[in-house]
C-alpha cells in the first residue's frame, strides 16, 4: 500500500525559523547569520566589525561551536552582549538549528539590540541547509583556502547575501588567485557583493561595514 505524503523533511526547522523571524521583527532587530569553514577568521572579522559599529549600532552575538567558549570570550572584550551555544550538549551537531537560536536569543534578550549576529559553526555544508530565521547571510572565505571552494560548496555561496574574502594581507606570500576566487563566487551567485578584507590589518573594511549599516537601517526603518 502506498501512502502519499508530500512533505519537506526540514519543515519542522522551517516552522521554528519562521517563529524566530516573527519574534525578531517584533524586537526590531536585524539578524545576520555568518558562516564559513573553520579557521577563515570569522571571529576576528567580527571582533573588528563590532569595534567599528558600536556604540552607534547596538550589537549582540550568538556564537556556535561544538566545544569551548573561546570565541565568546574573545567577542566579550568588545563590550557586545555575547552568548555561546555548544552543540556537544545536543549530539555534537555541525550546524545551528532554529530552536537553538530561539533559546539563546531569548536568553540574550534582543530588546536593546539593533543587530544580532549569529556566528555559525565552522562548516561550509550543513549550516547552509538550516534556516534560523535570519534576515541575511554572509559567508567568509579566506585566502589560505582554495579558490575553488565556492564551486565545491555551491549551496553555501548560493544562499549567502554577501561574501567576505579575508586575510588579504597574506596574498603577497601565497599563490592564491584572488580574482579567480571572486569570479568563482560570482559564478555561483551572480550579483552577490564580495568584500575583500584583512581582519588583521583592517584593510577593506569600509564597504563591508557600509553594507551592514544599510541592511540594519533598512530593517529598523
Amino acid at each position: 500500500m502506498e501512502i502519499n505524503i508530500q512533505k519537506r523533511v526540514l519543515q519542522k526547522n522551517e516552522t521554528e525559523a519562521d517563529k524566530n523571524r516573527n519574534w525578531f521583527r517584533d524586537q526590531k532587530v536585524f539578524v545576520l547569520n555568518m558562516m564559513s569553514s573553520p579557521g577563515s577568521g570569522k571571529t576576528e572579522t567580527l571582533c573588528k566589525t563590532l569595534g567599528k559599529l558600536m556604540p552607534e549600532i547596538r550589537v549582540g552575538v550568538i556564537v556556535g561551536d561544538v566545544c569551548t567558549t573561546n570565541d565568546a570570550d574573545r567577542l566579550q572584550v568588545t563590550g557586545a552582549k555575547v552568548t555561546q551555544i555548544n552543540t556537544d550538549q545536543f549530539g555534537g551537531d555541525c550546524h545551528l538549528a532554529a530552536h537553538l537560536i530561539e533559546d539563546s536569543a531569548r536568553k540574550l534578550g534582543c530588546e536593546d539590540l539593533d543587530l544580532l549576529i549569529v556566528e555559525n559553526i565552522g562548516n561550509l555544508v550543513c549550516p547552509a541547509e538550516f534556516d534560523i530565521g535570519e534576515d541575511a547571510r554572509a559567508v567568509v572565505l579566506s585566502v589560505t583556502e582554495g579558490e575553488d571552494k565556492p564551486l565545491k560548496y555551491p549551496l553555501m555561496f548560493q544562499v549567502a547575501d554577501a561574501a567576505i574574502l579575508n586575510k588579504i594581507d597574506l596574498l603577497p606570500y601565497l599563490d592564491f588567485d584572488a580574482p579567480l576566487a571572486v569570479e568563482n563566487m560570482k559564478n555561483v551567485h551572480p550579483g552577490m557583493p564580495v568584500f575583500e578584507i584583512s581582519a588583521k590589518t583592517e584593510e577593506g573594511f569600509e564597504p563591508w561595514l557600509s553594507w551592514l549599516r544599510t541592511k540594519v537601517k533598512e530593517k529598523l526603518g
Partner: protein
Amino acid sequence: MHEMGIAEQLVQIALDAIPEDMENPRVEILNLRIGKLASVVEHSLTFCLEIVTKDTPLEGVRLVIEEVPIVIRCQSCSREWEADTPMFKCPDCSDAKVTLISGREIEISSMELAD
C-alpha cells in the same frame, strides 16, 4: 553530518503518516525527492536511517531517491536553464541576479507499506 537529523525527521514524518488502525505496520520503501544542490549524501543518509529505524516499523526500510535537477532563472531576461555545474551565471546577462527554481529539495513524496 546533518543526515542524522534528516533521518530522524524522516522517521517522525513516516510514523505520523501510518494509519492509526493498521496492525503491525511495516514500511518497506520511502520515496524521496532530493535536489542536486542539497547537501545530502545518500550513503550517509542510509547509514543514519539504519540506526534510527531500529525496533520501529521502518526497520529495514529502503530509500528510493528521485534526483531533482538544478534549474535557474535569470531575473533580468527570464531565461531558464538546467545547470549541470555550479556555474549559475546567465549566459546573456552575466552579473544579473538569478533565482533558484529547483535543486534544493529534501522532500518525502510517499511511503510504501507491506500488505
